[in-house]
């Protein structure tokens, strides 16, 4: 049934698009077909999504996708996350969000009727492409179709493979959906730009598209930062941002959309910047598609930690076509309309803007943002064009001066007025925030901030902070809702200060914590108290570390466990948030004392005597007392022994050593004590040719004294202190609130504009 739902949705989408374009030619009554067709598309897309979710929740493992990404053991939230854990499902999530956003977009544009046909016509085309991917790469493929010949038709695997343990956490349930809302919403400014170009009218589209662009950028930004928090708090990457290609590729369209927003605001007031605004709106969505291409096609396979690998040739090819088509159409349209846009600008604008004006500052700010986007884009795309990759440091080095410039421009642009600013007044208004910022930066320098560029970044961020804070305060007394932009700027400045603290001034140390022993590091006293199984999840272990500072005691519990899925140890950090800093404990390994090492092992032939570590050891015979011959084929555990006689200075002592093999053949070595300091282990028996045993003789007194030996269970971890990291999260929250207020404010304004239109 699933594929049928998608096929119908696809057909309805094409019909809707077709009739929207017909109605764009002036036959308005065609909207009577295109609108219901859209609703049909949306209903069927939503139905298919519900159907897929239903199949996941009821464990229909006959579908390859569901078998691949879920199992009966997963809790509800992770089962839901299965929906978008793989390629096919994440495209379905995208299609789902598109169809829902489109309903709002249709209702919104129908109030600005002049734009509905072109905007929705473009939007449905974008949606058609995503639905087409779902047809080509269907989440509804049966296992016997995916593995034709390997399993019989109608075969239902009793259990699925389960979700990748890296994805098994709370953030998996919210980060991808939010990111995909951002991706989907970014299509709306693209559609408005294309609509404006096709209509060849550039006076009003910016007003109508602005709230959507703000929404898209706000949500995308939130999604990106949630990913950062995931990496920081759960995956134990040590930081929230690693300049990984997957992170970068979603950051680039975010930056360009921010540049687009600033030019849109400028363009609304001055009637200029039309081409740049159109270009940025178009390129932002193209970059979203490019991001999908980078992360889905596997082209970055060797450069990224979390690229999807090998999606199949057809999707790879299709994404390139999808991407280039929309890039060529969008940018081609701008070139095609170049002349008429220029004449429109000269007719609309009374005068050109002086350099000391807000619009000029915004334009330069937008260019600087684009420079940053270009840097990240170039570095991220590099592995496609040449074999190799770019170090994370490249992005840090490049973006540092850009961030400084952007912060200064941000602060200054708020003080500048549209069109014309008195130079004297402007200079005067700079004084107070600049002095405040300088004093604080001086204080930072006094506290140890010695790096010039870092200090400059702090200065610029503080400068922007004070100017925006003052403006926000003044405006909030008139209207709280209008403070959105300033709040977002404050948030960004706060975020930058957090970045400086948490990355430039983070301290890190590798620690070995023997159980029960207190180790001092980074100003904390840490004691490893042992591992305990996690109550709800007994296969995972908490490694309890008591942390003390200034008489306060905390318990941190980083996690390590063996995952069958990954065939390796998975590790999760634990963090204690101390308001001005985080203490971050990232587990590395657990070392347990070795029973014996290779050099302790000797072989003895049956019946012979060998002198090992001063003891004459006689291997008398095998001891098969506990060997159960009749259970040999049943796979039960077996124990084999060897009778020895130890002759020390004429005193003979009989000793029996044993080795136990589990059903899978894994040996378990059983220590046998001889006197206080000697331990004997039966390591191996061989009965072919000459019957002999491998025997380990360990002198514990000697072991203790050797420098490398670990004598007790030891937790190895990387401890780090991240100052001011709360400013990163706090800044993000402020930015998101700022965006939310701006969206509300702009929606109100565009509604007012719409009612003006009707009058």
């Amino acid at each position, binding site marked *: 049934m699933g594929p049928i739902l998608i096929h119908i949705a696809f057909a309805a989408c094409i019909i809707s698009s077709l009739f929207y374009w017909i109605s764009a030619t002036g036959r308005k009554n065609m909207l009577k077909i295109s609108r219901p067709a859209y609703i049909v598309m949306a209903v069927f897309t939503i139905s298919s999504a519900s159907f897929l979710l239903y199949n996941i929740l009821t464990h229909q493992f006959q579908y390859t996708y569901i078998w691949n990404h879920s199992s009966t053991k997963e809790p509800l939230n992770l089962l839901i996350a299965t929906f978008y854990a793989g390629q096919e499902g994440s495209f379905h999530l995208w299609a789902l969000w598109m169809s829902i956003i489109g309903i709002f977009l249709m209702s919104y544009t129908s109030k600005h009727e002049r734009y509905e046909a072109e905007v929705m016509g473009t939007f449905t085309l974008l949606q058609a492409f995503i639905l087409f991917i779902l047809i080509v790469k269907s989440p509804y493929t049966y296992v016997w179709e995916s593995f034709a010949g390997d399993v019989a038709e109608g075969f239902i695997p009793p259990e699925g493979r389960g979700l990748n343990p890296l994805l098994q956490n709370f953030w998996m349930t919210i980060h991808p959906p939010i990111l995909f809302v951002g991706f989907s919403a970014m299509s709306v400014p693209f559609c408005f730009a294309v609509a404006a170009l096709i209509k060849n009218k550039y006076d009003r589209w910016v007003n109508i598209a602005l709230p959507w662009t703000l929404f898209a950028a706000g949500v995308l930004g939130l999604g990106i930062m949630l990913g950062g928090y995931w990496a920081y708090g759960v995956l134990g990457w040590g930081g929230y941002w690693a300049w990984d290609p997957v992170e970068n590729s979603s950051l680039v369209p975010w930056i360009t959309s921010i540049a687009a927003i600033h030019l849109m605001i400028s363009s609304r007031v001055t009637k200029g910047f039309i081409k740049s605004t159109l270009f940025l709106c178009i390129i932002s969505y193209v970059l979203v598609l490019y991001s999908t291409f980078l992360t889905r096609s596997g082209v970055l396979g060797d*450069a990224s930690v979390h690229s999807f690998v090998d999606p199949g040739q057809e999707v790879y090819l299709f994404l390139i076509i999808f991407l280039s088509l929309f890039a060529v159409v969008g940018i081609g349209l701008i070139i095609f309309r170049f002349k008429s846009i220029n004449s429109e600008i000269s007719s609309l604008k009374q005068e050109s803007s002086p350099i000391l004006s807000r619009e000029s500052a915004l334009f330069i700010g937008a260019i600087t943002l684009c420079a940053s986007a270009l840097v990240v884009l170039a570095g991220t795309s590099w592995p496609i064009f040449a074999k190799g990759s770019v170090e994370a440091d490249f992005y840090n080095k490049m973006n540092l*001066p850009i961030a400084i410039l952007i912060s200064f421009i941000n602060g200054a642009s708020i003080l500048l007025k549209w069109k014309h600013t008195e130079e004297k007044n402007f200079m005067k208004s700079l004084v107070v925030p600049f002095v405040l910022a300088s004093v604080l930066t001086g204080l930072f320098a006094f506290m140890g901030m010695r790096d010039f560029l870092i200090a400059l970044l702090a200065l610029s961020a503080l400068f922007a902070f004070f100017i925006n804070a003052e403006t926000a305060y003044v405006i909030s007394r008139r209207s709280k809702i209008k403070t959105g932009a300033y709040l977002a700027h404050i948030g960004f400045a706060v975020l930058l200060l957090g970045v400086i603290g948490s990355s430039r001034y983070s301290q890190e140390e590798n620690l070995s914590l023997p159980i029960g022993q207190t180790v001092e590091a980074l100003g904390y006293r840490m004691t490893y108290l042992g591992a305990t199984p996690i109550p709800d999840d007994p296969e995972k272990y908490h490694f309890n570390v008591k942390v003390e500072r200034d008489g306060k005691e905390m318990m941190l519990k980083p996690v390590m466990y063996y995952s069958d899925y990954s065939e*390796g140890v998975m590790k999760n950090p634990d963090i204690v948030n101390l308001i001005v800093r985080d203490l971050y404990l990232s587990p590395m390994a657990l070392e347990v004392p070795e029973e014996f090492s290779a050099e302790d092992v000797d072989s003895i032939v049956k019946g012979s005597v060998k002198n090992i570590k001063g003891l004459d050891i006689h291997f008398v015979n095998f001891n098969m007392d506990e060997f159960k011959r009749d259970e040999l084929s049943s796979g039960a555990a077996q124990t084999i022994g060897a009778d020895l006689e130890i002759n020390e200075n004429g005193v003979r002592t009989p000793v029996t050593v044993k080795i136990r093999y589990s059903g899978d053949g894994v040996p378990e070595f059983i220590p046998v004590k001889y006197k206080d300091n000697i331990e004997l282990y039966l390591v191996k028996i061989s009965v072919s040719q000459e019957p002999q045993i491998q025997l380990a003789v360990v002198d514990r007194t000697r072991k203790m004294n050797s420098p490398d030996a670990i004598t007790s269970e030891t937790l190895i971890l990387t401890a780090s202190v991240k100052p001011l990291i709360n400013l990163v999260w706090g800044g993000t929250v402020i930015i998101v609130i700022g965006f939310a207020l701006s969206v509300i404010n702009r929606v109100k304004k565009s509604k007012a504009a719409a009612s003006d239109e009707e009058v």
Partner: protein
Amino acid sequence: MKKIRYIAGTVIILVFLTIGFFSFIDSKVEYANFSYASNTHRKCQVKGTWLKDKETRYDAANNQFIFHMRDENNHEMKVILDGAEPNNFRMAESIVAKGKVKGDHFHATEVLTKCPSKYEGDSEDLKKSNL
């Protein structure tokens, strides 16, 4: 006055392109095999496979993970990675080590693991579930 704005914009882009170009040359990591990496002082990334049968251990005292790797030209080398065993190391189909050759070993600052076969189940997995 409009011209000034465009000039300012162009200058910013040009300045960044120039700085960008040089710092790019500086920080790009080339693909290489062990024999190439032995003859350069630059940081390289080498793709290859982990040698299961050779020494593979974690050195707790130095927080280093030590293993042996065979590159695509069948050259084998000891690799010392700063840090613990990477996620998914043992299930990886291939690995990419980034770093420099130092004497007899490759000193890696980062090891990426690639596990195509496991993110998507194969027919072997499916048959297992049939038991």
